């Protein structure tokens, strides 16, 4: 029972300390999306449609960042929800985006920091689930364009995307072990 409580506390602390990473990752993505969209505007409609995902991500991140700065960081539930919103928005951009679409879109690169940040702060099961979900959604989006898919390129994208989630989660586990060891030595009686 005690170990369960300690683990729950550890997960909460992981989210408390680590959520600044997901916040920064999202700011990078917002900047990237804004740059791609605004450098590609040809009509007023493009600008209006392009503004929607940027605004949604910005508002969401302002809330999370604000809560963090007020030392009331959001909980695990909200982190998962915002992570799913990120995934949906990036996938919609890949599916309908202004710079190539589906497999031809290069906007899949926005998945990398989000998957990495999620792997760094969430428990292993959640991180793996999020990585797999991202891969599935991306494959699904590309399947709309099945004739254009180049197998080797798709393989490399999925390998690196899965790799970054897996390596992030692996490092998270190493750090947890290291932290526990440090705490153990600090709490042990001298001698």
């Amino acid at each position, binding site marked *: 029972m005690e170990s369960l409580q300690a683990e729950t*506390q550890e997960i*909460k*602390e992981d*989210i*408390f*300390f*680590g959520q*600044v*990473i997901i916040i*920064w*990752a999202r700011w*990078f*993505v917002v*900047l*990237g999306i804004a*740059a*791609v969209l605004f*450098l*590609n505007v040809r009509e007023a409609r493009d600008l209006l449609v392009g503004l929607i995902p940027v605004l949604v991500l910005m508002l969401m991140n302002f809330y999370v960042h604000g809560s963090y700065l007020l030392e009331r*960081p959001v*909980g695990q539930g909200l982190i998962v929800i915002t992570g799913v919103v990120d995934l949906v928005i990036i996938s919609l951009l890949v599916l309908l985006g202004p*710079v190539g679409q589906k497999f031809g879109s*290069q*906007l899949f*690169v*926005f998945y*990398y*920091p989000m998957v*990495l*940040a999620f792997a*760094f702060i969430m428990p292993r099961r959640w991180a793996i689930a999020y990585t797999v979900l991202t891969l599935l959604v991306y494959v699904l989006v590309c399947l709309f364009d099945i004739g254009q898919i180049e*197998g*080797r*390129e798709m*393989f*490399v*994208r999925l*390998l*690196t*995307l899965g*790799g*970054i989630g897996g*390596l*992030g989660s*692996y*490092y998270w586990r*190493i*750090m947890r072990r*290291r*932290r526990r060891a*440090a*705490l153990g*030595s*600090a*709490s042990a009686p001298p001698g």
Partner: protein
Amino acid sequence: MSALDYPCPKCGKKVGDQDRFCQNCGEALFVDVDTTSEPAETDYLCPYCRRENEPASSFCIFCGSPLRTSEARKSPVSRPAEAKHNEVYKDLAPKQVVNSRKELRKEENGMQQAEKKDNEVQENLEVQEDLAHGQIVIITFRWLIIIGALIVTLWTLATPEAVIGRQALVTFLLLVYAAVNFILLTRYLRRSPSLAGVTYVMSLVDLILITVVIAIQEDIFKSHVYAYYYPALMVLAVAFPTRITAVYTVGAIVVYGLMSSLSAGAEFQQILSRLLMMAAVAFCASLYRKIEHDRRTGKAKLFSLGGGGPDRSS
């Protein structure tokens, strides 16, 4: 400051007879030797030159400093700085006082330098530990690259555009790379991780290899190999100090940015988004490393103080 001024024993600027500290240098000034005893012979010692005066004297006959009355000595105000000061210098003449102060300052400086050295040693140890723990992630990433590249090479062999000689060379190089990584892995498993220099060089080789493979493609901008930069930058950012991570990341961004921009058919927005995400991945991984470092050290202190760690999640 009153009209009855005398020089500060440290800086020589004039100070008032009621001043406890020099207004110029902050030096605690002589006031009394014993704050509890009844007026005695020592009451007539000059507070500045420590020579004996006549009981009725208001001023020191040797140096002209004002002599204090016994009422002033019995002040109830606590003066720890003065007490300490007097304890150290009570039996010393002015010149000796200055010399002793210098020695004390030297000692203090020595202690500060020793503390600084201790901190540097601690920092170095942390860097070595980070490298040792991060090495296995770098080695795992390298397996990922090798397996991925081997699969792509074999895949290419099955296509009509395959150039057998070129694919054979690539396969050979990959096997050499795998052998080197295997050596690094065995060293790690035998608990004697590679030296920092070797790890830095190997990570640089990883980045150079990715860049070279991109550079030899017909269309650099369209080459999909750049996707390997993301895990490569991530693994080095979690293992290396921030400065080295920054140098490697900026180097990779500049080289890839220039190469792909100069390629025919390059699209600026797409290159920008690729480069921005490279920076994002390296930044996030480096930030995580720093957060974990702070957590380890900060939490350990909390536990040392006897607490169980506050509930920071609320």
